[in-house]
């Protein structure tokens, strides 16, 4: 009796959850499907779901026009570089906040977050002038620095909440055994915090990958990432749904695949200390 009740509930849960899940995912699915249609099929009335002639034409047109790999490499380097640099700077900071807290720790943390509220458009001109002065325009280095600064508060916060869950006794034991501070950080704390660090890396990689204001305004040809790639397909002349879909799919596919494969790691540490 009880078992059939649970089964019934399982079925309802499953149906409802799958329905909602597919609904939420549908725009992405539709984009991917459309990318394999011809332009004429893309605007067919009524819309075609699966019964169309699959073609790779759009992808070859897009690739012919813009060298996808170059944009992809820039995205990877900028998102990856800024995240790693941010982690290196944030680990000591988060350590000190988590294990040697002072009265001001909370204020510092909240202040760090408030720097993220600086409106990017408002400071574009100053940053642009600084970039010219230091020769950073259209360089990956420049964007790595900016993206790192933008995401640093989030990185520090995530690591801090994660570190706080690590018992301080373990670090103290290591210190008793004569480990230096550097060794304590690298060989004791970091390995223990791997899940937290992994999810921090993933989240910030995603955020940096999708950032479209600075990456577009501070690059031209050499350092332009996928956000610039998509800006050349946003409204071409004439029918463009299929080409737009192909370009969109190319721009989001890498991060979508990465996200799916690593969603367990991403979710595990994505608590911001919300769980207590």
């Amino acid at each position, binding site marked *: 009796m009880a078992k059939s009740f649970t089964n019934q509930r399982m079925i309802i849960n499953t149906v409802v959850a799958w329905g909602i899940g597919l609904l939420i995912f549908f725009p992405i699915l539709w984009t991917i499907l459309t990318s394999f249609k011809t*332009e*004429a099929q893309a*605007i067919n009335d009524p819309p075609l779901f699966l019964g169309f002639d699959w073609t790779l034409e759009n992808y070859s047109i897009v690739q*012919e*026009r*813009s060298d996808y790999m170059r944009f992809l490499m820039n995205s990877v380097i900028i998102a990856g570089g800024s995240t790693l640099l941010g982690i290196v700077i944030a680990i000591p900071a988060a350590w000190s906040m988590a294990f040697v807290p002072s009265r001001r720790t909370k204020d510092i943390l909240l202040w760090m977050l408030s720097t993220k509220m600086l409106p990017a458009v408002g400071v*574009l*001109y100053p940053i*642009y*002038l600084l*970039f*010219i002065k230091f020769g950073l*325009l*259209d360089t990956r280095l420049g964007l790595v620095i900016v993206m790192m600064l933008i995401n640093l508060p989030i990185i520090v916060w995530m690591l801090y909440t994660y570190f706080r869950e690590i018992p301080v006794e373990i670090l103290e034991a290591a210190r008793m055994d004569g480990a230096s501070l550097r060794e304590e950080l690298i060989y004791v704390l970091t390995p223990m915090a791997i899940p937290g660090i992994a999810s921090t890396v993933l989240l910030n990689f995603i955020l940096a990958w999708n950032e479209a204001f600075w990456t*577009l*305004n501070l690059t*031209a*040809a*050499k350092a*332009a990432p996928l956000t*610039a790639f998509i*800006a*050349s*397909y*946003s*409204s*071409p*002349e*004439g*029918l*463009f749904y299929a080409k737009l879909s192909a370009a969109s799919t190319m721009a989001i596919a890498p991060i979508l695949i990465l996200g799916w494969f690593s969603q367990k790691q991403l979710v595990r540490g994505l608590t911001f200390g919300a769980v207590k």
Partner: protein
Amino acid sequence: MQIKSSVAIAGMLAFATATSAFAETITVATVNNGDMIRMQGLTEEFTAKTGHKVEWVTLEENVLRQRVTQDVAAKGGQFDVMTIGMYETPIWAKQGWLLSLNDLPASYDIDDILPAMRGGLSLDGQLYAAPFYGESSMIMYRTDLMSKAGLEMPDAPTWDFVADAARKMTDKDNEIYGICLRGKAGWGENMAFLTATANSFGARWFDEDWKPQFDSPEWKTTLTFYLDLMTDAGPPGASTNGFNENLSLFQQGKCGMWIDATVAASFVTNPKDSTVADKVSFALAPDTGMGKRGNWLWAWALAIPAGTQKEAAAKEFIQWATSKDYLALVASKEGWANVPPGSRKSLYENPDYAKVPFAKMTLDSINSADPTNPTVKPVPYIGVQFVAIPEFAGIATQVGQEFSAALAGQQTADEALAKAQALTAEEMEAAGY
């Protein structure tokens, strides 16, 4: 692998240096319009000819404008060649931001550039940007729908005829809309169309003392006419339709008439993209009998920002991309109908090009636009569908948003005009007029 690729690069470098003593890599910023995409596809021809390599920054029009303006104003020096328009050229040239192109060699034949284009891209007799393609605006209409409505389009129709025809062609149940016009807010979108149209109704942006004129009866007639027409015979969602959206609608056979850039003619008559390619004809933009037609004048042109380190290579590029040879090159690959139009006299004297159905109407439209004398009454400014002052882009985009909101039914024509008048006066005062 790494060794291999670096050997390959070294080889390429050696090859490049062999072809030209000063092989450089230049960065060209351009719009993602069809003709520019084609130019991008032909880059290898340029590299083969000169040895210079080209790195393209191809962006959507609004993003491109913002990027190049920001860069040239802050002297960022990210681009060696920029694609700019007739609006930017004189303003930037006046700031000394552009290099003069008057010293191009005789073989370039600078006098072959259509006078209307050359005039619009020059300041004090110096050419500052070379036209890649030039355009005016005209009516593109469906011959089948026109005869179905029992009408015949004259070569030079009036607005009354166009409005009447649009209403008769409309068949909303079958998704046929009599007329597609721009409604998307932006100085280069709905305001280009509305300013040019206003000229034909005798309206103007400013009087001789730079006082905004949106409170004039002429503007009210223009806007009311436009709103009524679009409500009766326009497509749904017209207030978010720009050039591209309308082009797509027309190609799908959903528009009876479309008044827009002459360059669109080659897209709507191209059977590869257009479902109505064989049913399209052309006419001059309408008038109201006041002596001015509602057509504009525009050129997308290539310019060199002052301060580039690669002036020579940049000039070679502009010479190549805007030359007679380039037109012939495109014609040999894609046919004459697909060459970038509206830039050179010799193109229109070419008998092969004369066979293209829209060639004559394009030239007539270009020739009938007069930037120095755009409307019925005298004006203190230059420009048909724009006013060549730095503040215009910002003001017109905001005015365009008011008109777009009126088209969406969120406010009346009077409210939109009153707001337009107020904000224009405010901005002009801030600019010190």
